[in-house]
């Protein structure tokens, strides 16, 4: 029995849904974002590398990692930046053991808090530390804008995840557990009030994920052209590859938890059925399409406008959802 657990643990971390699968999903997601964005802008998007351009993000990553040089100056601390980014990527990879899709699924009370810490808080701090390790005037401005935005967006993201988990698991033995949320997801459809709460959480989630991904209208931390590339201005070569990977993984894991907690994962089917797998993929693509659409139809807010909009549309809906969840029967 213990041998099984070790084998499943190793397979979950190294292959599925850990390192290899997550990285492949990050590249595929990046491909879809670039392709869909291109179609919105009447361009072709990635088309030449691999079948229908599928391998373009992988080759871009490989080019940065293998072929490009690392550019440093006397104020740079590239080893610290590498260390921070590796910790960030590893935290996201290890958070998958709490997802019901994992072959070794760990469940405990309040595991959503550990998941949130690993998949959202640590990668953010890792990115900030890495950026500050490669300082420039633009990096500093980008980081201060990023920190300002996440001060509001992270609580919004946290609340929008927490509320459905609370509703689905209250009175359950595994209170505030992601696995239990997946099992009891039908409770969220049980009444119009819980549906309204779910809708408010989805609104908050959508806005906060746009901030986490730093996509328009909340791309002020990297504000291309205005402050060069903001927080990632001084990254180059392998460091830039790692930073981009961390960014993409952050988006992927947020979409995956959104699919499970807000949309019920493979519900009404289960993971092992082909229909369940299809529903899971469809829900992931719907969330991704929402993110890409918002990215392409909106312009960039100034930092003060962005903060107000995140507060209005990102934070207030999940707070209302939380209040409703506490009083809902």
């Amino acid at each position: 029995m213990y041998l099984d657990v070790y084998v499943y643990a190793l397979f979950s971390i190294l292959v599925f849904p850990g390192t290899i699968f997550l990285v492949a999903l990050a590249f595929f997601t990046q491909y879809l974002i670039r392709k869909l964005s291109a179609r919105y802008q009447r361009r072709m998007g990635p088309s030449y590398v691999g079948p229908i351009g599928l391998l373009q993000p992988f080759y871009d990553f490989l080019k940065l990692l293998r072929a490009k040089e690392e550019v440093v100056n006397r104020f740079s601390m590239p080893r610290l930046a590498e260390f921070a980014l590796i910790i960030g990527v590893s935290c996201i990879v290890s958070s998958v053991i709490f997802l019901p899709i994992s072959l070794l699924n760990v469940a405990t009370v309040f595991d959503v808090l550990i998941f949130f810490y690993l998949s959202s808080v640590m990668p953010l701090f890792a990115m900030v530390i890495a950026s500050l390790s490669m300082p420039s005037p633009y990096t500093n401005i980008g980081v201060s804008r990023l920190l300002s935005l996440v001060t509001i967006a992270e609580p919004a993201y946290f609340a929008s995840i927490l509320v459905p988990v609370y509703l689905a698991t209250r009175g359950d033995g595994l209170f505030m557990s992601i696995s239990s949320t997946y099992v009891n997801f039908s409770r969220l459809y049980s009444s119009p009030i819980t549906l309204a709460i779910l809708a408010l959480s989805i609104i908050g989630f959508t806005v906060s994920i746009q901030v986490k991904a730093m996509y328009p209208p909340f791309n002020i931390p990297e504000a291309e052209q205005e402050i060069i590339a903001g927080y990632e201005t001084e990254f180059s070569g392998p460091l830039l590859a790692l930073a981009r990977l961390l960014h993409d993984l952050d988006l992927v894991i947020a979409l995956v938890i959104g699919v499970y907690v807000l949309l019920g994962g493979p519900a009404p089917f289960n993971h092992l059925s082909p229909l369940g797998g299809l529903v899971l993929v469809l829900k992931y693509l719907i969330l991704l399409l929402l993110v890409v659409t918002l990215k392409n139809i909106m312009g960039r807010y100034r930092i003060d406008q962005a903060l107000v909009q995140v507060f209005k549309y990102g934070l207030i809906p999940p707070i209302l959802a939380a209040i409703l969840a506490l009083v809902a029967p």
Partner: protein
Amino acid sequence: MKTTLVLDPSSALTIVVAVLGLSILTVSLLYYALKSRRVRVTNVYLSGEPESVVSSVTPSISSMYWGFMKRFAKSLYRVLVEGVHTGSLHDWYRFLSSWLALLVLLAVIVFIASIIAGW
């Protein structure tokens, strides 16, 4: 095919730390095995800023203050400055009789009541 371990929080944390260690090892090995070894040292480009901009380990406090408090909070303070602190008793009364002030008042009453009731 699939194993679900239902654990107590401390055991779950122990597993998470072990898994995190394994992940760090895997990602580090892959990264250092594949990364390019070429490094180019350049002069730092500061856009006319002093060196103190990059020699400190965190962004300057003033830029964070400017980014968050002064710009974001300005819209919040504006309500108080333009709506309440005008010197007019009417403005002060209008604000106090608004839904926002009633909400604040309600929160204070509930807070005091909860202390008195010993909740």
